[in-house]
């Protein structure tokens, strides 16, 4: 028996089969973060969970201009970085998908810029962004800003 045979049959008794996901057009990235996936075809909601946006505390509405900018930049970083997280797992099992690869490259580029800008204008979120964002070279910088679990208006 040839044990190196590549399986083309999808169904076999005593073995489970999960269909490979096909590319589906992603949500806009803000919706993707709220929903927990960039892919509408993978979003299976629970009937008890309320639909729509969370009425969580908005920091930017009550803040000064600098805080508003900071908050907006942090929000954009969260949606872009999450889309990258979700795409990473997709590409791990679909490494040749041109749609996924194109979006992945585009978002990685934006994330790099956002991290540098955030470090340059406010404080560093990663150590490498101290250099890419020209963070004040006289300051250590790493302890700056609230810790992520504080839930602070950043």
């Amino acid at each position, binding site marked *: 028996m040839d044990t*190196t*045979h590549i399986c083309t049959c999808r169904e076999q008794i005593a073995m489970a089969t999960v269909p490979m996901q096909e590319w589906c057009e992603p949500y806009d990235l803000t919706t993707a973060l709220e929903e927990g996936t960039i892919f509408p075809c993978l979003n299976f909601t629970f009937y008890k*969970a309320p639909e729509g946006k969370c009425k969580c505390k908005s920091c930017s509405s009550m803040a000064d201009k600098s805080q508003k900018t900071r908050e907006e930049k942090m929000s954009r970083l969260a949606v872009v970085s999450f889309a990258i997280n979700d795409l990473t797992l997709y590409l*791990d099992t679909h490494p040749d998908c041109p749609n996924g690869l194109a979006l992945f490259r585009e978002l990685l580029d934006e994330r790099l810029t956002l991290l540098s800008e955030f470090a340059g204008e406010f404080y560093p979120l990663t150590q490498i962004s101290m250099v890419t964002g020209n963070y004040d070279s006289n300051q250590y910088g790493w302890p700056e800003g609230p810790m992520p679990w504080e839930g602070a208006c950043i």
Partner: protein
Amino acid sequence: MFAYEKRLQFPVKIKNTNPDTARLIMSQYGGPDGELSASMRYLSQRYTMPVKKVGGLLTDIGTEELNHMEIICAMVYQLTRDLSEADVKKAGFDAYYIDHTKGIWPQAAAGIPFTSLEFQSKGDAITDLFENLAAEQKARTVYDNLLRVIDDPDVIAPLKFLRAREIVHFQRFGEALEMTKETLDHKNFYCCNPEFDKKKTSLL
């Protein structure tokens, strides 16, 4: 290696103190189907995975579970940080408080401490992938159960996000199972253990 980034994967901003909710959510930190268990499961299994891409997927999902563990801990912290002495007595948080005050410690909702017995690394790719498929479903059920009993929208938003991730991970582990099956004898998937009996598979 892992490097820290100073933000949460999903923002957590909880206004109202609620030790009862904290005690329930804590189960997703140190409980049997929690995020700590999930990350240790995947990060342990990856070393011996015979299909390289599956080892890569386990690394990426295991890393994401560390992010989820941090989200859960942030929620527990914010729900209990303003706890008063009166809160401790009335809210069913008293037993936890006696041992840990407001410190964050991994245990299940019913008080059972975290243990590695809650997950498996079996050294057989098929077995481990089924373990992972089941783990994602178990965690989804816990999030369903939490969403049924919690009303605070500040808490619901991250829980909804985390629940959705379980389904995405389930799909990815299913795809990893397909990728692993392709390297095995399709007439008898159980003729050998691809992590041990390497000569029997197409992996060498």
